[in-house]
């Protein structure tokens, strides 16, 4: 464990200040607004702010404790997300053994390859070996009803909840010239831009959202919310350029990639929820739904961001 540098301290100090500010607004709104509907919205807002404290606290602690703690945290997040994902997609008794492998062998093994820095296996394990293994195990179980559908669901769960999510802590392993030992800040950059993009799209949508983008999939997403949120989150990313190996313009470009992929991630995961007739994947955090609801944008943003950095900066 290395002591965090002054930039990291400033970053978490900044987040701390931001959360204090948000909590203060939450308290003021609760005291001033009247009416049942308004109070309900505020209660939801305050629950979200409280959960943010929790998330920033856990994430901050992991980053400060170092690589092993961060990998453990993301491994746990993957596990919880996979659990919510599989719970929501009906599986049958014939999938049982495959599921056991997915939860207790493939997921830990994948994070183990990440921890040991075996990059070649990290990128192959789930998309190649896991991809082939799941249908083999399901075939051995002998139930052919909806075979393709059932197999695909498990493969999808592993890809989205484990493989894609793990690209976020994977950033810690990149060797970027002139940026040695500072990779945690790249992870901070990704997570901050992704999450702030969600928050800012929500805020912009509430303030001036008119035209719905996908009324059937996600009625709360509006063009105004997306444009406003995307632009302000991109600006935020550009403003954070100092903590990254990027120039301000490059940082804006990277933030734009994160924002766009994050948006699509949210949209796709909403489509799955709609199809299953639920609003949230779980109820882990009050106001936020489950783990999957919180990291849906990260799932799509992390791999693309990782490979963009790996391609252009290593």
């Amino acid at each position, binding site marked *: 464990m290395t002591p965090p540098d002054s930039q990291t301290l400033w970053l978490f100090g900044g987040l701390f200040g931001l959360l204090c500010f948000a909590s203060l607004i939450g308290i003021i709104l609760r005291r001033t607004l009247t009416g049942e509907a308004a109070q309900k919205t505020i209660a939801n807002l305050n629950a979200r702010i409280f959960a943010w404290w929790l998330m920033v606290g856990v994430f901050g602690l992991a980053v400060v404790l170092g690589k092993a703690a961060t990998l453990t945290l993301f491994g746990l997040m993957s596990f919880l997300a996979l659990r919510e994902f599989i719970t929501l997609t009906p599986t049958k*008794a014939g999938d*049982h053994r495959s599921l056991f492998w997915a939860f207790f062998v493939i997921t830990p093994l994948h994070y183990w390859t990440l921890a040991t820095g075996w990059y070649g296996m990290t990128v192959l394990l789930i998309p190649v070996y896991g991809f082939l293994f799941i249908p083999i195990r399901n075939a051995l179980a002998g139930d052919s009803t909806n075979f393709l559908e059932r197999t695909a669901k498990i493969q999808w769960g592993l890809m989205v909840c484990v493989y894609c999510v793990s690209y976020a802590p994977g950033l810690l392993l990149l060797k970027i010239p002139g940026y040695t030992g500072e990779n945690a800040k790249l992870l901070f950059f990704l997570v901050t831009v992704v999450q702030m993009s969600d928050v800012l799209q929500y805020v912009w949508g509430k303030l001036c959202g008119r035209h719905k983008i996908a009324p059937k999939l996600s009625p709360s997403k509006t063009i105004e919310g997306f444009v406003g949120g995307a632009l302000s989150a991109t600006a935020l990313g550009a403003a954070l350029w100092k903590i990254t190996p990027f120039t301000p313009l490059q940082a804006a470009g990277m933030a734009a990639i994160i924002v766009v992929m994050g948006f699509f991630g949210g949209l796709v995961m909403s489509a799955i929820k709609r199809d299953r007739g639920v609003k949230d994947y*779980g*109820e882990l955090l009050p106001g936020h739904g489950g783990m999957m609801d919180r990291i849906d944008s990260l799932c799509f943003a992390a791999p693309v961001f990782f490979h963009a950095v790996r391609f252009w900066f290593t």
Partner: protein
Amino acid sequence: MIGRLLAFIARLFTGAMPRWRGCGPEPKLRVYFANHSSNLDFVLLWASLPTEIRAQTRPIAAHDYWTSNPLRLWLAGQVFRAVLIERKNVTRENNPLTPMCAALRAGESLILFPEGGRNPSGEIGEFKAGIHHLAREVPEAELVPVYIENLSRVLPKGEILPVPILCSVHFGAPLRLEPGETKRDFLARAREAVVALRSV
């Protein structure tokens, strides 16, 4: 102590949150009756009750299964404090309803699976008559319908290793035997009460 630990593990592994829809977790004399799809059903239902209510609630379990080895015997007797009943060679002497009524009259609530056996398909089968008998013999007990969701996916019939799929335990509004209600009507109504909890 071990009971609390087991209850904690059961809740952690299944992520199960009790959903008190039709009644609250009150220390009343009750018979909790639920759908039966997995061997873990009664453990999870039992674990979903608050500690003090759990301490005065006893599951009904099969005598032959729970006395077949020392570990099961110890778990059934010391940890779950199960009311063991005969399910195969029922005679007048070992009538399963006698110990159930005795436990209720001693002020202890019961956990019961009126389908008799497991229904791994997720369908809820016809109820056996025992619950009607309890309702008639101990009318002061509230009959609370419970629907246990997803547990058959955690541990399907014939499997040993569980997978951590999220479960829920839904508690519905209590029933009592209405004056003049026939056995058939009551059993159908009790079953409907469990089925109704499935669709919420």
